[in-house]
């Protein structure tokens, strides 16, 4: 092949430009830490990376939901615990009140303690968390329980709705218990049983009246109410465990997705450093050749 002067120079310029471009790409990859600078660098990888980033955003939201659900359920758990304690105290009082030999003032003393317990239970029933009523069903802005002074002694203004949160794709978990379930308002949980307030109010009245048969019926009722509260609490505890499990699983999935994402779009620094060195060597060699080539000409030997 005939070699012309512009051919030598043109080819060298092209090679140097090619090398410079490859050097630039490697430098960009290393300085940004990303193998994929634009989706077209690796369309398949970029698409997978986008999907994984989307998954990570979803997983982070699920994790936040799980946290919030745990908080809500812990509040419910605590309140149910308080309710159980109060109901146990009421049962103890009922046992004392069942003793027919009690003097009238002892009975009225016991009755006023039962009144205190009723107020405690009402306070539990109207508990707020973060400004919202815990046992109002979905009507979380309405005070759910109010004394009527009649029968039933306390009315329920909430509803039977429960709150759900999503903890995984289409996997929801109930994170609230409605007040009518907890306190058996209008027999929502057990139609054969009074609501908690009626039970306690009857107990108070029967202690005052010395109605031993009534009081022993209330002890049975209180056992049933306490049993229900404990079942609800066990249920809440079970859900809390489930949420804990969810949180751990979400963390594991997040880690593995993060790892896969990094493998997909991050640059392998060791490999990139080796490539960069090789490219630099090539660049230097090309530049050296260019410097040499321009010295070779017949003109050097003509005088």
């Amino acid at each position, binding site marked *: *092949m*005939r*070699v*012309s*002067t*512009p*051919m030598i120079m*043109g*080819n060298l310029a*092209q090679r140097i430009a090619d090398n410079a471009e490859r050097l630039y790409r490697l430098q960009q990859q290393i300085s940004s830490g*990303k193998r*994929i*600078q*634009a*989706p*077209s*660098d690796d*369309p*398949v990888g*970029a*698409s997978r990376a*986008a*999907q994984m*980033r*989307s998954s990570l*955003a*979803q997983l*982070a*939201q699920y994790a*936040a*939901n799980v946290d*919030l*659900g745990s908080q809500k359920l812990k509040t419910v758990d605590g309140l149910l615990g308080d309710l159980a304690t109060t109901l146990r105290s009421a049962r103890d009082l009922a046992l004392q009140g069942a003793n027919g030999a009690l003097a009238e003032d002892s009975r009225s003393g016991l009755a006023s303690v039962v009144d205190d317990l009723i107020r405690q239970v009402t306070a539990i029933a109207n508990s707020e968390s973060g*400004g*919202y009523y815990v046992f*109002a*069903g*979905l*009507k*979380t*802005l309405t005070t759910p329980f109010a004394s009527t002074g009649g029968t039933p002694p306390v009315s329920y203004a909430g*509803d039977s*709705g429960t*709150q*759900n*949160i*999503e903890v995984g*794709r*289409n996997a*929801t978990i109930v994170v*609230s218990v409605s007040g009518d379930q907890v306190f058996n308002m209008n027999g929502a949980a057990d139609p054969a049983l009074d609501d908690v307030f009626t039970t306690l109010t009857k107990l108070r009245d029967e202690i005052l009246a010395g109605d031993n048969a009534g009081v022993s019926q209330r002890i049975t009722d209180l056992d049933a109410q306490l049993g229900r509260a404990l079942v609800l609490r066990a249920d809440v505890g079970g859900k809390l465990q489930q949420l804990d499990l969810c949180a751990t699983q979400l963390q594991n999935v997040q880690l593995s997705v993060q790892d896969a994402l990094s493998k997909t779009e991050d640059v392998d620094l060791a490999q990139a450093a080796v490539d960069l060195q090789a490219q630099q060597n090539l660049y230097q060699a090309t530049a050296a050749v260019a410097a040499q080539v321009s010295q070779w*000409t*017949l*003109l050097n030997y*003509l005088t």
Partner: protein
Amino acid sequence: MSTFFGINIALSSLLAQQRALDTVGNNVANVNTPGYRRQEAVLTPGPVYPPAGANGLLMGGQWGSGVEVQMIRRAQDAYLDLHARTVHQEAAQWQSAQTALAEVEGIIAPTSDSNLGALLDRFWNAWQDLSAHPEELSARVNVRQQGITLCAAVRQTVAQLRESQAGIDLTLTGKVEEINRLAADTASLNRQIAAAQAEGRQPNDLLDQRDQALSQLADLVGITAFATDRGDVIASIGGRPLIQGSAWYGVTAATRPDGHIELRWQEDGAAVNVQGGEVFGLTQVRDSAIPGYLAQLDTLAANLVAAVNAVHQTGYGMDGSTGNDFFAPGTTAANIDLSAAVLADARAVAAASTADAPGDGSLALAIAQVRDQALIGGITLNDAFRSLMGDVANATRSAADTVAAKQLSLQQVTTQQQSLYGVSLDEEMTNMIAYQHAYDAAARLMATMNDMLDTLINKTASP
């Protein structure tokens, strides 16, 4: 046979070597001139004396009468030039397409966290958040804000894609002037070349200029060109002549019904059937790539609006309102926005499935779950965005790969042309020495003739 015949031979050589040296000089001077092709002086023996039929027998045969320059030949390979133009126009076509597509890729799929996919994720998460805090106004304000951001980003993407199309229109309009100028130049060169050749001259520099102009035309619009026997070049675009001898037919930039620019023949207004070069590459991106992406964005937007609204209408806002749309219904990607009700008051954002239940976040959850619904041909909205991004990335990638391949052919053909047409300084120096020595020898011949005449005239004079 004249006594001065030898002097004339020496003179012919002096003149010929000088012209050959001038050619060397011209080559050396133009070693770096783009489009310059090396020339060489073609030396040929002078006419023999006496010519055939004259009384050659008496003279014992024919004598050579020295040397003359037959022509200054320009290096040329018509097939290589044709091939080079094809390679050039393909490379130019894909190069311009790749540049345009890279811009589109930057618009649709910026690698930052602000691409539509990331904004969709944030939008769905805002609904999740609302489902967990259904009583809170701030969660609704957040949902609304994410909705506004998402809508603005979709509209912005559409606007930028259209700007990109308009940019291509502007470029095409600019190219029209360039095409007409080059066509006029080539036609004028055709005329000058024909005139020079009719006079028996060798218009090398004009030929260089014409090849340059044709090569630029090929880059621009993709032409097929061939030379006629008369030395003219006929160049055509899509089978219709642009340049024919000294005539040329102009093109003009006309606005199509869809508002975009197309090239038309000035003569009759017919569309120019461009099949190569930058114009073709850009037109392809503008007319097939970008509209495809816009249609995908429209599908995405329409499905997002319909799916979210369908759920949202059944829900209840914090203000007790129901039946509200979340997005303004019936919008496309170009004008997607939130509904007036939601824009006016964030409390209209529905989270509850039932009336009068502020703690109910089930509707917000149902909207968040739209994220995982297969809405568009079996895929989710997020998938649809990723598929759009994948399409753009693949198109850009494949254009880049094609450019790389075309660059390689281009490099190859350029090397071939430089090998054949380029000036080699070493070669020129060698020729220079050869011509210089020949010149020296001719001058010495002249001196010897002079001595001989001196002997003849002065030494035979009477004392």
